C-alpha cells in the first residue's frame, strides 16, 4: 500500500501520511486491536482511491489543456481515428514497444539499486574500503587486527577508520545463531558511516564486558518482519545464541534503506565488537575509512603505507606461514561504492546493455513499420499538403500518431513490468547487493518516460522524412531522399536488427545451455521426497578444537529418534557437512598410512544413507548400529576410492583419521586411528549442482563429530511439507538445546545452488527470445513496406505470366542478402562479445557449434517467417485490379 502511495504522492508525503495513519491506528487499537486494524485498512483503501482519482483527474486536465492550447488536440483525435482504421498495424507497434519496454523497465528497476543509486551514506564519496596487502604476495587479505587499526588511527588522526567483523567465517557467525547475517561493529562505526539508528543505539557500556544478554541493533527489515514493526521493540529479545553468548536484546533499529557497508556480509543484525581486546593481533576486521575532505585517496594511501612501513620496522616480526603473515606494507583504497557493487555491477551492466539493445531493435523495427505506414497514407498526406498543410503540420501529425503508439506500448510495458519484476526477484540470487529493493517507483517511471520520449523521437525520424518525401512532388518541394538512399537505409536497418538479434540470441543460448547442463547433472542423492533441516547445537564451551564435542552426538541421536517417530517419516539421519551451500568444511580427513594425500571425512549418523538415498556401488553401507556407537568402519565415495587406490578396490582396506587445522593442513599433533572401508558409494555433489563432487569418506558421527551444525536428512514419501514443519516445531520445542536454522526440500536446495546461473539464464534467455520476436516483427514490417511499394510491379509481372511462387521468391530473395550480411556481422560481434561470458558458462564452451547453429537457425527461421508472410500476401494481388488502377 505504501508503495502505491509513494508512487502517487512521492516519498516524503507518502511517509508522513503513513505515519499519520500508523499513529491513529495505535490510538484506535487501545480500544481493541481488531477494530484498529479494520479501521486502518478501510481508511487506507478509501484514501488511496481518493488520492489516485485526484491525481488522475489533475493529470488529464493538464494534458487536455496543453494539447488543446497548441491545436494538438485535433491532431490527436485525427491520429486515434486513423489508427482505428489500421488495427493490425497499431497492435504490432504497441506489442513491439510493450515487449521491449517491459523488459527494459524491469531490468532498470533491478539495476537501479546497483549501478545508479548513490550509496545511502552522507558524503559517500569520502568513504573507502581498505585492502591491505604484502609486497611479495599478489593479493592481500582484507582483514586487519585491532592492534594494526589502533596504530593507523594514532598515526593518522585526520582519517576516520572503522573496523567491523563481518566475515562469515569468524566471530560474528559463531555468535549469530539466528540464521540472519550479523556483523560486530566498533563504537565509532556510526560516526564514520554517518548513519545512525533510527531508534536507540549502543551505549559505551555495551562495548564493555561480554554478558549473558547481547545488545543488538536490528535492520529495519528485521524490525518489520520479526517484530511486526512494534514501536516498543527496544528491550525485546531475539534468540541469538541461547547458550554460548546469551539471548540478544534489541537496543536499536537501523533506518529503512540502510545497507551494511561490507563487501562480505549483508548484515541485518549489528552486535558490539566484543572480546577483541583479548586477541589484538587476530586479523578478522574489515576496514572502511572516511578520508579528510579535499585529500585524494592516493595521498592517503601513501601516508598509510608510510605508517605501515614504520610499524613493520618497529615490530621486527617474521611470517610463520600459518596464522600470521607478517606486517602489512601495502594498501589499496577502493571507493566503497565500487567495492560493494563489484560482484554484481558487471552482470547488471551486461543486462542493462542488453536491455538497451532490445529497445534499439524495437525502435528500428517500429521505425520500419511506421515508414511502411507512411506509404499507406501517401494519398492522404499528399491531399493535406495540396490544401495547404505545411511541413511542420505533416511532421506534427506523424509525430503525434507515433507518440500515441509508443506511449500506449510503453504504458502496457509498465503494467506488465511489476509482474516481470516479481519473476525476476524470484529467480534472483540472494547474495546480490542492492542499494534499494527493486520496485516500480518514480525512478523507474522516469526512466520509462525518458526511454519513451527518446523512442518517439528515434522512431519518428524515418517516417517523417518518408512522409515529407511522399508529399513533396504534390507540393512542389524537393524530394528528401532518393529511392536508392532509402533502400540503403532500409537494408542497413534490417542487417543491424539481424546482427543485434543474433548477438542476444547467442548470449541467451549460451547461458540457458549452461543452466540446462547444470540441471542434467546427477546430484548423487535422491531429491524426491527428501528434505534437509540444518541444526545448530550450541557447544556451550564443550567444543575443543580437534576433538569430538562431548554430549552433542547424544543430543542429536535423541532428536533423530523424535523425528523418526513422526508419522510419514520413512528414514532420518544426520550428516555433519555443509550440504548444498557452495562451501565445505574440513575438520576431519582420512588418509592412507603412508601417504600425505587426504580427503574430507563426513561424519554421519545411522539412517543417513537411507534417508538421503545414496547409491551403493560395492560392499555395504556401514550399519546404523555401527555408526551410532562409533565403530571404526567407513564408506568411501567412488572418487575417493579411485584417488586412494588406483584399482578403485577399497573394500576391506584401512584409512586413518586426520584432524585438520583451519588452514586445511593436517594437524600432526592429533592421534590417528584406523578405520576399515566396508562400502563404496556413488559420488554426491555436496557443494552445488554445478560443482564437481569432491572425494569424501563417510564415518561415524559419534566418533568424528567436530562441528555442531549437523544437517538432518528426512525422507517422507508424499508428506514432505507436513513433516518438515513438524520437524521445525520439534526443533523449536528442543530449544535452547538445539535450534533449526534452515529447513528446505532437497529439490529447492538443489535449485538454489544454481540460482545465480538460473538468474543469468532467465535474464539473457528472455532477452534472446524477445530479440527474436522483435527481429521477426521488424523484417515483417520492412518486407510488407517493400511489397506495398512494389504492388504495381508485382501486378505487371503477374499479368506477364509470372507465377505466385516466382513473386514470393523475388521478394524474399531481395532480403536474403541483407539478412545474410546481418548474420555475418552478428556472428563477428557475438564471437567477440561471447568471451566475456566465459566465466559464467558451465560445461558449454564459448564457441560450442551446437549452440551457435541453434542461435543462427533461430534467427534465420524468424527472418524467413517474417519475410514469407508479407511476400505471400503480396503475391495474392489481382493483376487486373492493379492494371485498372494504373
Amino acid at each position, binding site marked *: 500500500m505504501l508503495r502505491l502511495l509513494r508512487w502517487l504522492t512521492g516519498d516524503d508525503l507518502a511517509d508522513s501520511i503513513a505515519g499519520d495513519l500508523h*499513529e491513529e491506528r495505535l490510538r484506535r487499537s487501545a480500544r481493541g486491536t481488531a477494530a484498529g486494524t479494520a479501521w486502518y485498512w478501510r481508511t487506507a483503501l478509501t484514501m488511496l482511491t*481518493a488520492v489516485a482519482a485526484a*491525481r488522475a483527474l489533475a493529470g488529464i486536465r493538464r494534458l487536455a489543456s496543453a494539447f488543446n492550447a497548441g491545436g494538438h488536440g485535433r491532431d490527436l483525435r485525427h491520429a486515434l481515428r486513423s489508427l482505428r482504421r489500421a488495427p493490425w498495424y497499431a497492435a504490432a507497434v504497441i506489442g513491439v514497444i510493450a515487449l521491449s519496454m517491459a523488459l527494459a523497465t524491469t531490468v532498470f528497476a533491478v539495476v537501479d539499486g546497483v549501478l545508479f543509486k548513490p550509496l545511502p551514506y552522507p558524503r559517500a564519496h569520502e568513504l573507502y574500503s581498505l585492502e591491505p596487502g604484502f609486497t611479495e604476495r599478489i593479493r592481500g587479505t582484507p582483514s586487519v587486527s585491532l592492534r594494526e587499526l589502533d596504530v593507523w588511527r594514532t598515526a593518522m588522526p585526520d582519517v576516520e577508520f572503522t573496523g567491523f567483523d563481518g566475515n562469515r567465517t569468524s566471530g560474528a557467525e559463531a555468535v549469530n545463531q539466528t540464521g540472519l547475517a550479523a556483523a560486530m561493529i566498533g563504537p565509532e562505526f556510526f560516526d564514520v558511516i554517518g548513519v545512525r539508528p533510527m531508534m536507540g543505539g549502543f551505549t559505551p557500556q555495551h562495548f564493555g564486558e561480554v554478558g549473558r544478554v547481547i545488545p543488538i541493533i536490528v535492520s529495519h527489515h528485521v524490525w518489520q518482519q520479526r517484530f511486526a514493526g512494534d514501536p516498543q521493540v527496544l528491550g525485546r529479545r531475539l534468540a541469538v545464541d541461547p547458550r554460548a553468548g546469551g539471548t540478544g536484546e534489541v537496543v536499536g533499529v537501523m533506518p529503512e534503506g540502510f545497507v551494511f557497508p561490507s563487501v562480505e556480509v549483508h548484515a541485518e543484525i549489528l552486535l558490539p565488537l566484543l572480546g577483541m581486546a583479548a586477541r589484538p593481533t587476530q586479523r578478522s576486521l574489515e576496514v572502511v575509512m572516511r578520508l579528510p575532505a579535499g585529500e585524494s585517496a592516493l595521498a592517503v594511501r601513501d601516508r598509510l603505507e608510510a605508517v605501515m612501513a614504520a610499524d613493520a620496522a618497529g615490530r621486527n616480526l617474521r611470517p610463520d606461514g600459518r596464522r600470521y603473515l607478517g606486517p602489512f606494507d601495502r594498501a589499496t583504497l577502493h571507493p566503497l561504492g565500487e567495492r560493494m557493487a563489484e560482484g554484481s555491477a558487471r552482470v547488471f551492466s551486461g543486462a542493462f546493455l542488453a536491455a538497451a539493445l532490445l529497445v534499439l531493435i524495437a525502435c528500428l523495427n517500429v521505425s520500419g513499420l511506421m515508414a511502411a505506414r507512411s506509404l499507406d497514407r501517401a494519398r492522404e498526406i499528399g491531399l493535406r499538403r495540396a490544401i495547404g498543410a505545411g511541413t511542420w503540420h505533416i511532421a506534427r501529425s506523424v509525430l503525434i500518431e507515433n507518440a500515441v503508439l509508443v506511449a500506449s506500448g510503453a504504458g502496457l510495458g509498465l503494467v506488465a513490468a511489476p509482474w516481470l519484476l516479481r519473476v525476476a526477484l524470484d529467480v534472483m540470487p540472494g547474495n546480490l547487493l542492492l542499494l534499494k529493493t527493486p520496485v516500480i517507483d518514480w525512478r523507474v517511471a522516469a526512466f520509462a518516460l525518458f526511454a519513451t520520449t527518446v523512442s518517439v523521437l528515434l522512431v519518428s525520424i524515418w517516417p517523417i522524412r518518408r512522409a515529407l518525401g511522399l508529399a513533396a512532388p504534390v507540393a512542389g518541394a524537393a524530394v528528401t531522399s532518393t529511392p536508392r538512399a532509402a533502400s540503403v537505409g532500409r537494408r542497413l536497418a534490417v542487417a543491424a536488427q539481424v546482427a543485434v538479434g543474433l548477438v542476444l540470441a547467442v548470449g541467451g543460448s549460451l547461458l540457458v545451455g549452461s543452466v540446462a547442463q547444470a540441471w542434467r547433472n546427477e546430484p548423487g542423492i535422491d531429491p524426491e521426497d527428501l528434505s534437509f533441516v540444518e541444526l545448530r547445537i550450541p557447544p556451550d564451551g564443550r567444543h575443543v578444537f580437534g576433538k569430538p564435542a562431548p554430549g552433542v552426538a547424544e543430543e542429536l541421536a535423541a532428536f533423530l529418534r523424535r523425528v523418526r517417530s513422526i508419522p510419514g517419516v520413512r528414514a532420518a539421519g544426520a550428516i555433519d557437512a555443509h550440504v548444498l551451500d557452495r562451501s565445505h568444511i574440513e575438520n576431519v580427513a582420512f588418509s592412507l598410512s603412508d601417504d600425505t594425500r587426504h580427503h574430507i571425512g563426513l561424519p554421519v549418523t545411522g539412517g543417513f544413507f537411507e534417508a538421503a538415498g545414496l547409491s551403493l556401488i560395492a560392499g555395504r553401507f556401514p550399519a546404523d548400529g555401527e555408526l551410532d556407537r562409533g565403530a571404526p568402519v567407513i564408506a568411501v565415495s567412488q572418487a575417493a576410492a579411485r584417488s586412494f587406490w588406483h584399482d578403485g578396490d577399497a573394500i576391506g582396506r584401512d584409512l586413518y583419521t586426520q584432524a585438520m587445522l583451519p588452514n586445511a593442513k593436517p594437524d600432526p599433533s592429533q592421534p590417528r586411528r584406523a578405520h576399515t572401508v566396508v562400502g563404496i558409494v556413488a559420488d554426491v555433489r555436496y557443494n552445488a549442482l554445478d560443482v564437481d563432487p569432491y572425494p569424501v569418506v563417510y564415518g561415524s558421527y559419534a566418533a568424528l563429530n567436530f562441528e555442531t551444525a549437523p544437517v538432518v536428512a528426512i525422507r517422507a514419501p508424499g508428506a514432505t511439507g507436513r513433516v518438515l514443519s513438524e520437524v521445525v516445531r520439534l526443533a523449536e520445542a528442543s530449544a535452547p538445546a538445539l535450534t533449526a536454522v534452515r529447513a528446505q526440500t532437497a529439490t529447492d536446495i538443489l535449485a538454489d545452488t544454481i540460482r545465480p546461473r538460473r538468474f543469468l539464464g532467465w535474464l539473457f534467455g528472455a532477452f534472446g527470445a524477445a530479440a527474436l520476436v522483435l527481429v521477426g516483427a521488424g523484417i515483417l514490417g520492412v518486407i510488407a513496406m517493400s511489397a506495398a511499394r512494389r504492388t504495381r510491379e508485382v501486378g505487371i509481372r503477374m499479368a506477364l505470366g509470372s507465377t505466385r511462387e516466382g513473386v514470393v521468391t523475388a521478394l524474399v530473395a531481395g532480403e536474403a542478402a541483407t539478412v545474410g550480411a546481418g548474420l555475418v556481422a552478428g556472428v563477428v560481434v557475438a564471437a567477440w562479445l561471447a568471451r566475456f561470458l566465459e566465466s559464467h558458462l558451465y560445461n558449454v564452451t564459448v564457441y560450442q557449434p551446437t549452440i551457435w547453429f541453434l542461435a543462427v537457425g533461430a534467427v534465420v527461421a524468424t527472418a524467413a517467417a517474417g519475410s514469407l508472410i508479407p511476400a505471400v500476401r503480396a503475391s495474392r494481388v489481382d493483376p487486373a485490379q492493379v492494371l485498372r488502377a494504373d
Partner: protein
Amino acid sequence: MGRETPPALGEFEQMVLLAVLCAGRDDDAYGLNVLAELETRTNRRASRGAVYMTLDRLEKKGLLSSYLTGPTPERGGRAKRCYRVTKSALAALRASRRALTALWDGVRGSEI
C-alpha cells in the same frame, strides 16, 4: 510596481487553510489534527485523501510551508510533516473574507 493580487482560493482550500491555523495554535499542525479540526468545527466528514492532496497542492502554490519532525516509534519510525500558513495565504484568506462579507452585507435578512 502594483500591489500583488492574492491568489484565489476554493472553498475547501479556505477551510483547510483555516483548519491549519486552528490546529497550529497550540500544537504543530499536521495531517491528523488538521483533519480533526476540520471535522469538529464544520461538523461534517472530510475525505482524508482530499485533505492530504489539498495540503500538498497548497504547499506547491506557496500558501503553506512544511517541515519534518524526527521519526518516532508511535508513528512506525516515520517523520511527521507539519504545516505553517504563509503570508500570501493569510492575504488570500483576508481577501476572501472581505469579499464574502461585502456580499453578505448586500443581502437582506428576510431574503434567506
